């Protein structure tokens, strides 16, 4: 049974499921972030407070953290196995036609992980009381951060890479889950493109608006 649970296909199946769950979370996060565009900090802070205290959200939060952990750990294990499967590299670079979005998924994912750690230090760990900070007014914390040019550039780069990762993510998850169809796969690809453009653009728009126009 262990062989089945830890087979290459099972690991990818778990990774795809965890990744798909994360895809559901991003629009919710974006929806809350849109409240940062309002002049009144209360709605955003109330939403942040609700997310931090509502019991059902707490359960979802645990599932979400587990999904992030599984997606990262399995991703690293699979990548190490992939490196080990070709100990001697080719002398001439492989010129086979391939999807760059999928090819660099590990590296775009790695960059997102670095951002996630920074993001956790700025918000999540403060909420948990692990790091000192103003947990009651994340609105002002976010506004201050977006006015730091270095942070803004890092934020935009990370969300650009997130877009690349997301474009690969949904269609790849469908393929891994066995969903490949003559009619529906092009629709999935189109949806992936729209999602990958819309979500990171939304986050970037909020950051840029706060930095330059607020």
């Amino acid at each position, binding site marked *: 049974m262990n*062989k*089945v649970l830890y*087979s*290459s*296909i*099972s*690991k*990818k*199946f778990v990774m795809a499921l965890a990744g798909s769950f994360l895809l559901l979370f991003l629009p919710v996060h974006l929806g809350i972030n849109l409240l940062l565009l309002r002049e009144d900090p209360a709605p955003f802070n109330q939403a942040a407070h609700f997310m931090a205290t509502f019991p059902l959200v707490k359960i979802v939060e645990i599932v979400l953290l587990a999904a992030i952990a599984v997606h990262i750990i399995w991703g690293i294990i*699979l990548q190490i*196995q*992939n490196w*080990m*499967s*070709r*100990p*001697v*590299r*080719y*002398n*001439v*670079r*492989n*010129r*086979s*036609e*391939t*999807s760059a979005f*999928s*090819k660099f*998924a*590990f590296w775009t994912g790695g960059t997102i992980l670095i951002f996630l750690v920074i993001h956790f230090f700025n918000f999540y760990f403060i909420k948990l009381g692990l790091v000192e900070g103003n947990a009651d007014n994340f609105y002002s914390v976010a506004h201050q951060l977006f006015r730091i040019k270095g942070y803004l550039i890092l934020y935009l780069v990370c969300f650009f890479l997130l877009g690349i990762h997301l474009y*690969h993510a949904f*269609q*790849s998850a469908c*393929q*891994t*889950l*066995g*969903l*490949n169809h*003559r009619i529906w796969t092009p629709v999935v690809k189109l949806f992936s493109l729209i999602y990958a453009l819309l979500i990171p653009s939304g986050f970037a728009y909020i950051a840029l608006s706060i930095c330059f126009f607020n």
Partner: protein
Amino acid sequence: MRIKLKIWRQKDAVSKGSFATYELDNISPEMSFLEMLDALNKSLVEKSLEPVAFDHDCREGICGSCGMYINGYPHGPVKGLTTCHLSMRYFKDGETIVIEPWRAKAFPVIKDLIVDRSAFDKIMIAGGFISVSAGAAPEANSVNVRKKNSDAAFDSSICIGCGACVASCKNASAMLFISAKISQYSLMPQGRPEAKERVMSMVSEMDKQGFGNCSNTGACESQCPKQIKLVNIARLNREYFKAF
């Protein structure tokens, strides 16, 4: 045509290899790639040098023996062709052609351009068969198969097991090969009774042989000389989940 060849030379499985450079004149554009290598070997033998070892058999694009990595492409730069069908007219006069063996942990180099592809045989032994005695060919209408399924089964059965999918994949994954074999059996009624055991055994053997994991980059599909499609990998995944 005048060409320059950079070929991987390796005495045996344990020796360290390196590239050797050869120059060839009077290569006809109508020659196949393997005929060009024959011409090279003839000139090497005439000089009492060791000829370049490379796999070949049918030279008709159906045996899958002649796999080699040419200028960054498994089977060369032309889509849908095996190395034996690759013609020298696809190369320029004066071009340098770099030839390497397949590179994968599961395909160790035996000599020069020859790799040990018995990992594929082991996967087939694990489950790539129908173990019932099929007897004589049945009357055509006694077993009804949907046209769509029989076409898809046929399309996947043309996989020649050359290993180009493994060679082109950045992860050296064998998923396209296995998926073609799984599809070939699972789409036909004769293959259904053993479908679960087959997919479990073949995937388990694939992992044991040290192939990498599929990351859906599609390089295998683009380099497959028989143009086996990625849809087979999705079918393999479905068959695997159904087997739980």
